[in-house]
């Protein structure tokens, strides 16, 4: 199958073996690398926009009293910081990496559905322009939290339909990206590459893609019901009309919990590529790693209630959600142990991608511990909606998902550009990020336990010290990310030539390392044979 497909492309598509010039190359892009690049650049821009919002939030929280923004703008910033980071930075970054790497890892010439690929990317700039423009309409941007709980979210001003439409567009884009990944992996693997031989990154994305297709329509349904409640006098969530605000929470978190794994599973895949390379040793227990990812994905559908313990829940439901949430620690533990065993009796070197992968290993595990604590229902009543939760999910998302993305970018950037990047600058970026991410988020555990609720613009004076520490960490972490952009731009513009294997001396395995750096425009015009 793959053989026929790739030879067909080789023969009939010669007029497409060079990129178009100028803007047309990007507007009409159908090439997986061009689209991957656009996704990654878009994600980086969103990372800085969402980050700028976080800087304002941390500046306001630097000391008690309101100094910079009023509470309404503060709530708008927290809400949109989350929406932008989740849907604009983390998810598109993973889709970008999938676009670049999956065809190259499975020995395919391109993604299976290139025009849909183009469409799924180009929706995003419009979706986020719409979302960001809500700051300038009467009533301001959405300020009810990214979870959009009604009735509060229904108090949003004129921006409400814009917000809903933007979310719909993001969802459509994600679903199309996911379909493309599944079709590509299922149909375009090189001959001989059976599923269990497939690299872990492609595996993690295959499972993620199914999660996306399963839950994004649920989110679309939930926000559409909000829309009709707001404009068409339905009462899905309005108790006065017989509706039920808690039902929204159930629907939302049925999407929301798998969404959490959508943002971490591809990072698991990246770490499973990077650690073996720089340990010079194959991944330990590769098959059990795949089963672990699949189990986590399955469990993610039946634990959503743990977000809602404090909203009132039958006793049996509390016990059910507690048990299954705790159970997630088992496959997650297997992954951490397997990664550790991968390093055991290896030969470790510490290039930037490895440094980020190691920081991921330690800090994601800390996020896992606080997750386990949060699963304990009685304790969750004390943690719920406090800064302890904020610390928990930032630990799994920043040194988790985002460090995973950075490890991937530093791992494959020389492959993409054909140039080695500035290692010293990249390592500086790593050390500053790894230190300040902890200064930023670790004290938030203390704040939450000491009683500071989340999503408040101002706080009682006893929370001042840790907030100051956290803000200082935040400013330093934010500033350090400028180095990331500098390393990338420098690497695109030039640098020492990278070889095909890039990480000479280490042990990069996978088909992508058999291609030149940068790889040919159509990755594999002739499908490689996998033995």
């Amino acid at each position: 199958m793959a053989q026929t497909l790739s030879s067909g492309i080789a023969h009939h598509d010669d007029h497409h073996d060079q990129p178009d010039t100028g803007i047309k190359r990007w507007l009409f892009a159908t090439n997986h690398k061009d689209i991957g690049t656009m996704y990654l650049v878009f994600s980086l821009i969103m990372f800085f926009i969402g980050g700028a919002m976080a800087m304002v939030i941390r500046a306001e929280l630097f000391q008690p009293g309101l100094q910079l923004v009023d509470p309404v703008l503060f709530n708008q910033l927290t809400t949109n910081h989350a929406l932008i980071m989740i849907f604009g930075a983390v998810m598109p970054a993973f889709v970008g990496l999938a676009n670049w790497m999956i065809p190259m890892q499975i020995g395919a010439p391109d993604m299976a559905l290139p025009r849909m690929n183009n469409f799924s990317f180009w929706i995003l700039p419009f979706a986020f322009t719409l979302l960001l423009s809500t700051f300038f309409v009467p009533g301001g941007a959405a300020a009810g939290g990214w979870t959009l709980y009604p009735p509060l979210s229904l108090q949003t001003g004129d921006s409400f339909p814009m917000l809903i439409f933007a979310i719909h567009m993001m969802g459509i884009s994600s679903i199309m990206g996911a379909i493309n990944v599944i079709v590509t992996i299922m149909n375009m693997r090189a001959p001989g590459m059976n599923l269990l031989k497939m690299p872990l990154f492609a595996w993690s994305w295959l499972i993620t893609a199914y999660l996306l297709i399963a839950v994004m329509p649920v989110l679309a349904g939930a926000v559409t019901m909000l829309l009709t409640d707001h404009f068409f006098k339905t009462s899905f969530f309005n108790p006065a009309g017989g509706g039920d605000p808690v039902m929204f929470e159930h629907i939302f978190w049925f999407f929301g919990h798998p969404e959490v794994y959508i943002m971490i599973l591809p990072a698991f895949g990246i770490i499973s590529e990077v650690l073996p390379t720089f340990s010079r040793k194959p991944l330990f227990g590769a098959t059990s790693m795949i089963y672990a990812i699949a189990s986590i994905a399955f469990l993610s559908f039946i634990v959503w209630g743990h977000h809602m313990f404090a909203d009132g829940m039958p006793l049996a439901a509390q016990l059910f959600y507690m048990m299954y949430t705790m159970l997630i620690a088992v496959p997650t533990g297997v992954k951490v142990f397997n990664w550790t065993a991968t390093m055991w009796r290896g030969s470790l070197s510490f290039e930037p991608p490895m440094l980020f992968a190691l920081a991921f290993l330690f800090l994601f595990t800390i996020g896992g511990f606080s997750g386990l604590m949060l699963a304990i229902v009685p304790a969750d009543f004390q943690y719920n909606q406090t800064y302890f939760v904020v610390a928990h999910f930032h630990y799994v998302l920043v040194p988790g998902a985002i460090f995973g993305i950075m490890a991937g970018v530093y791992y494959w950037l020389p492959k993409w550009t054909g140039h080695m990047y500035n290692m010293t600058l990249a390592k500086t970026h790593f050390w500053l990020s790894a230190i300040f991410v902890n200064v930023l988020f670790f004290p938030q555990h203390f704040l939450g336990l000491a009683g500071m609720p989340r999503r408040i613009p101002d706080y009682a004076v006893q929370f001042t010290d840790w907030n100051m520490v956290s803000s200082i960490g935040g400013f330093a972490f934010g500033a350090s990310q400028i180095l990331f952009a500098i390393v990338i731009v420098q690497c695109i513009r030039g640098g020492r030539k990278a070889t095909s294997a890039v990480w000479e001396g280490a042990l990069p395995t996978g088909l992508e390392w058999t291609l030149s750096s940068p790889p040919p425009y159509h990755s594999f015009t002739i499908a490689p044979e996998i033995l």
Partner: protein
Amino acid sequence: MSRRRLKSIEIRGPVLKSMTRGDESTFPPCRHWVRALCLATLGLAASAGANTSNGYNLPIGVTGLSRDIYTLHMEVFWVCVAIAIVVFGVMIYALVKFRHSQGAVADATLVHSTKVEIVWTIIPIVILVVMAIPAAKVILMMEDTRNSELSIRVTGYQWKWQYEYMDAGEGVNFFSTLARDSNFARELHSGIDPKTVNNYLLNVDNPMVIPSGTKVRLLLTSQDVIHAWWVPDFGAKRSAIPGFVNELWFKVDPGKEGIYRGQCTSLCGRDHGFMPIVVDVRTPDDFKKWVEQQKAAAKQAAAQGGQTPETAPLAGQPPRSAQVLSN
């Protein structure tokens, strides 16, 4: 700015009246003032008696539930620390021992071991079961709201709380809003140093008063958006959701009378950060006296024809002030 501030004084007019009256009856004896002052000055320190948080950990609290939660929390924490020491220990050992720069040679045969993989799947399951059993016991206790001795209906509004007493306090009914000094200081560019404000953002005009040693049941609901009622020292948090009545109970240990503070923990709009909860725990006798005073005051106000928040009928419609604020 000045217009907004004026408006906020205006709408709080009736509340103001009740506060001046409340000052004689509502506020606790002197030692509580000292304790409150102590807390405000020391900030982080847990002063004797008031088991509030030490600034970086959960408070042990003053109810059986809060102590059980604290115990569970610390148990899970130490389990996590133990696992972390083992796992991070192995990782750090590997990072030090197996360095390429130190000439380590990779053992490419070490790629799979069914035995260890089964071991590190079973052990976590055992640890989790051991953790889940005591947790389940506490959940059973939390859910048991039977035989409560005092019920209070707590209604969340944007942005205040209403307390309606049933049982022994039948007829007592009032609103609780952010204290005025905090309310001025929290304005953008107010120029007031929050450190100079008494219990900045954690003080109210009319605290909820409850007796110690009594099983108090709260029935939580909301008239607009979702709020959440939380007093960390009681180990008590539950959402107040429109159209729902959630239950919650606690029993403050006798001898732990005093002022306990908390906040709304569910984002509820602009002033989410400014609707604190203050609970004044008194001995059962003092509580009885307080109820009598409240009733007498309400009767007197009704006789004068003035509408105080205590007597205003509110069920079913948001209070006037909330309407003004949300516009």
